[in-house]
């Protein structure tokens, strides 16, 4: 009997050694040689694989950095300056400190809930609804409220607000740009967070003529250019009946906010005023007061 056991052990042992040798040869022949630096860089990255850098995940970003040897054209938005500095240290290069940015939703149909002109009954996707019609608000440029941006965010930083327009949580937002890409009407823009987290922006992307825009939304930008005239830094341009503030030039003086007749310009991050009554926030204001608006022609129907 021991004779049989011995033979079994010897045969299996020989097979085991044979397989071990084959595996070893194969492992050596097909070994992937990787720069160990890639592992080190990948270690310091956030690991969220959000794709904000434009690469296929954090590992791909690490590979790109090591392959290039520097960080030109490569920025990890969620990691921010801290991560950029660490990676630069590993690569042995210098990196520029970028300005922190945040996603900004440029639409505020304050009375949208009451003024809904129709009831959308189709697929709950902004991309789809955009191909069907103007949207429940009636504004062909305005927010559709189906939440494609909310679904795209991997950092839980954007949620649907009460009046059907999304709200960004500036603390969680990493400015990866996923929501901006998801919005079919390009309402969301990545803008500088601003000094002391204060920023001013035009909360409208409507390019219709002033009179038409006002019929749809009380807080629309009508392209009157009063903001551009009053801006001390020449940061505002009005093109296609729409005003735009260049965040690189803006010093957040808020002259445009008070000047705007439709309250289309928003300021964020400023402390509440002590005594002086500020221009009423659009969410509380009823229909805008009657103002002199140069109207080209009244459109019938």
């Amino acid at each position: 009997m021991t004779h049989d056991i011995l033979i079994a052990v010897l045969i299996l042992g020989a097979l085991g050694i044979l397989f071990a040798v084959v595996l070893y040869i194969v492992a050596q022949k097909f070994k992937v040689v990787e720069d160990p630096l890639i592992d080190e860089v990948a270690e310091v990255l956030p690991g969220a694989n959000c794709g904000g850098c434009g690469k296929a995940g954090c590992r791909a970003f690490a590979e790109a950095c090591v392959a290039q040897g520097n960080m030109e054209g490569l920025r990890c938005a969620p990691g921010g300056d801290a991560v950029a500095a660490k990676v630069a240290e590993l690569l042995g290069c210098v990196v520029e400190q970028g300005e922190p940015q945040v996603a900004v939703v440029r639409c505020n149909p304050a009375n949208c809930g009451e003024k809904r002109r129709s009831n959308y009954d189709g697929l709950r996707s902004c991309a789809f609804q955009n191909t069907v019609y103007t949207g429940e608000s009636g504004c062909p440029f305005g927010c559709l409220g189906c939440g494609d941006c909310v679904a795209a965010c991997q950092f839980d930083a954007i949620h649907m607000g009460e009046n059907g327009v999304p709200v960004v949580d500036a603390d969680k937002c990493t400015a990866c740009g996923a929501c901006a890409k998801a919005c079919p009407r390009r309402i969301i823009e990545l803008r500088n967070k601003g000094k002391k987290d204060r920023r001013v922006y035009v909360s409208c992307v409507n390019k219709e003529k002033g009179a038409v825009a006002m019929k749809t939304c009380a807080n629309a930008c009508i392209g009157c250019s009063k903001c551009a005239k009053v801006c001390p830094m020449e940061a505002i341009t009005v093109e296609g009946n729409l005003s735009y503030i260049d965040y690189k030039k803006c010093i957040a003086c808020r002259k445009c906010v008070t000047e705007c007749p439709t309250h289309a310009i928003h300021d964020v991050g400023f402390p509440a005023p002590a005594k002086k009554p500020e221009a009423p926030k659009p969410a509380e204001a009823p229909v805008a007061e009657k103002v002199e608006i140069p109207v080209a022609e009244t459109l019938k129907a």
Partner: protein
Amino acid sequence: MKTFKMGGVHPEENKISNDAAIEVMPVGKQMVVLMNQHLGAPATPVVQKGDKVKVGQLIGEAQTFMCANVHSPVSGTVLKVDTCKDAFGLAKPAVYINVEGDEWMETIDRTPDIKRECTLEPKEIVAKLKEMGIVGLGGATFPAHIKYSVPEGKKAEYLIINAAECEPYLTSDYRVMMEHAEEVCIGVSILRKALGVPNAYIGIESNKPKAIAHMQEVAKGFEGIIIEPLKVKYPQGAEKQLINAVTGRKVPSGKLPIDAGCVVSNLGTAFSVYEAIQKNKPLIENILTVTGKELPSQHNYIVRIGTTYNEIIAHSIGQLPETTGKVISGGTMMGKAVVNLDAPTVKGNSSVLVMGEKEARRNPETACIRCGKCAGACPMGLEPYLFSLLVKNNRIEAAKEHNILDCIECGCCYFSCPANKPLTDEIRLGKNKVRAMMAAKK
């Protein structure tokens, strides 16, 4: 009885306006004529503020390839050339005309007698179709002169006329067959001559027995017109399904009917071809059904393009019922809900369908149960449940590989889904994304 082999569903027919004879919709005080009433680029306005126009006068010229002429439906003075919000609230270029009298262009033959002989050569017929702004009235409004100019290397063997009217509620084609059968047959003969084919087949669904009998009777007096009764099944009127039913052929994936040797046109188009070629009348009118279960009366009208939905509603039923949910341009399967009732109607509008809130409201969506009914119902042999998943997960390349572009958006998948998933919407979104991806690659 012939039918197409793959898929199909049986929605309720609801042909409640079948017996309403065609009436003439009166013209209002102002007409707004959109410059894009066809598949392709908008026509270029050739009139300006202050110009006087007559009925049938050219006001928009086709200046690019995929385009069609647009003619004035009224006589009067041009108020302005501007934009107008269409049925979906989007601003589109249009010509506004203040109506004065009803003066027609002298070239148009307004006598009621029916002209049978057509002395034009095929090329002249196609040129006249272009001049008269004829577009397909089956819904897609494809410019007829392009369809009837068979490209080099391709040959037309069959002319098929779609008189199936498979879309529920619509009855305009039925009324045209009952009231203008002879004109239709002349139009079909003209199209047959333009293509140079021996026979034209008019496919009629068997739920219209009176129309089949009447057309068979009238067609006896014409050479090469064969009436083909078809089994009632949606979407029998879709061109690829018609080709399969009448000829047994299949249009290859990604190709057009001409690649299977067939040219398909709607019955309404054949009627407008008669008016254009024999009476020199450009396309300025639609035959339109006004229907709905909650309406006090059902109607079929001849409506001039530029008449608004509100004007049609006011004249036919006075006002919308209190319980109205949606006003649909088209039928229940492929129609689109109208958001702006002040919008003008355009070529190819087949109906104003008023649906009550309960009937119009979509049922709530639940999860896919992988039953496969959608794949069974799809007349193109596609897999809607798969497209729904691929589009949701943004796998656009994969969607293209599974032939999502072959979808004809008939709605059979959504109709058959027990979970009420808006499959047709999801597939439409997928098709848009695939086209965007292909355009970006170029």
